[in-house]
C-alpha cells in the first residue's frame, strides 16, 4: 500500500513538474503503475478476497440458518395451531356428545317415569276394581245370608204353624217307618 501511495505521489510530482501532458502519464509512470496495480491486485485476490468470501459465506449460512429456524418455528406454530384446532374440534364434539348423552338420558328418564306412572295408575285402577268387586261380592253374600236367614226363619214358622196334630203324627210315623227299615 505504501508503495502504491508512493507511486501516486511520484506521479503527481511528475505532473507538476511537466505540464505537457496532464491526462496521459508518462510511460515509465504507467509501467510502474501497472506493476503496482498488479501487485495490489495479487494481494487482494490472494488474501482479501477469500477472507471476504468466507465472511460472506458464514453470514449467508447464518442467515439461511435463521431462515430455517424461522421456517421450523412456523411449522411448529402451524402444527400447534392444527393441534389446537383439533383439540378444539374434539372438545366441541365431546361437548356435543355430552349434550346428546344428557338428552338421551333425559328422554330415557322421561319414558321410564311415564311408564312407571302408567303402571302405578294401572295397579291402583286394578286394585280399586278388585276392592270394588270384593266389596260387591261380600255385600251380595251378606245380603244372600240375610235373605236366606229371614226366608228360612219365615218358612220354619209358617211350616210350624201349618202343622196340625195329624201332620205331626204323620211326620213321626214316617220317622218311625224309616227307622224301622234301617
Amino acid at each position: 500500500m505504501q508503495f502504491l501511495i508512493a507511486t501516486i505521489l511520484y506521479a503527481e510530482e511528475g505532473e507538476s513538474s511537466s505540464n505537457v501532458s496532464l491526462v496521459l502519464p508518462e510511460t515509465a509512470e504507467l509501467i510502474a503503475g501497472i506493476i503496482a496495480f498488479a501487485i495490489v491486485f495479487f494481494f487482494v485476490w490472494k488474501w482479501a478476497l477469500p477472507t471476504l468470501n468466507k465472511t460472506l459465506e458464514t453470514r449467508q449460512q447464518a442467515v439461511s440458518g435463521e431462515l430455517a429456524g424461522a421456517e421450523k418455528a412456523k411449522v411448529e406454530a402451524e402444527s400447534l395451531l392444527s393441534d389446537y384446532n383439533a383439540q378444539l374440534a374434539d372438545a366441541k364434539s365431546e361437548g356435543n356428545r355430552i349434550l346428546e348423552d344428557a338428552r338421551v338420558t333425559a328422554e330415557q328418564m322421561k319414558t321410564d317415569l311415564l311408564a312407571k306412572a302408567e303402571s302405578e295408575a294401572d295397579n291402583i285402577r286394578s286394585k280399586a276394581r278388585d276392592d270394588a268387586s270384593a266389596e260387591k261380592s261380600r255385600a251380595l253374600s251378606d245380603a244372600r245370608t240375610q235373605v236366606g236367614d229371614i226366608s228360612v226363619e219365615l218358612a220354619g214358622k209358617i211350616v210350624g204353624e201349618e202343622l196340625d196334630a195329624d201332620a205331626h203324627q204323620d211326620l213321626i210315623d214316617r220317622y218311625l217307618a224309616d227307622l224301622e227299615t234301617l
Partner: protein
Amino acid sequence: MQDRITGYANGIFELAKAEEELERVENELFTIAQALDDSPELRSTLTDPQLPMEKKQALIDDLIGGRASSLSVDLVQLIVSQGRSSELSDIARALVKAAAASRDKAVAEVRSAVPLDEQTIERLAAALGRATGKSVEVKVVVDESVIGGIVARVGDTVIDGSLARRVDSLRQAVES
C-alpha cells in the same frame, strides 16, 4: 269337672235307689234339666253369683216345690246351694245314664215338637234299640225348635228326622 258330675250323679243315684224313688227322681231331674236348658233366663238367674243363695232356693221352691217329690227338690237345692247350678243339667243327664245303665240300658233322648203317646214311645224304643244295637230307654223332650218330626240321640249317635234339619239344609242351600 267330669269327675264331679259323675260323683254327684252316682251319689244321687244311690240315694234315690235307697229311698226307692229312683225312677221318679230320675224323671223329675231330667225334666228340671230340660227346663233349665230351654230357659237361658232361669239358667243365668240360678248361676248369678250376685244373687243371694236364699233367693235362689226360694225360686226353686216356687218352681218345683209342690210338683216334684221332696227328695228331688232337696237334691236340686243341694246342687244349687253347693254353687253347681251350671252343672245341674249335666248331672241330671249323668244320673239318667247311670240309672239306665243299672238296668242294662242306654238312654235315647228324643226331641219332638209335640208330646208323644205311649205307643209311639214304645215303637221308638224298639226301633232305636234295633238301629243302635242297644237296649234303650226313651226320654222325651218336647222342643218346639224341632218344628216337626223327631231327633233322637243315643250316646254320640244322632238320628235326625226333624223339619228343623230340612229347614236348615234349605238355609245352607240358599246361603251357598
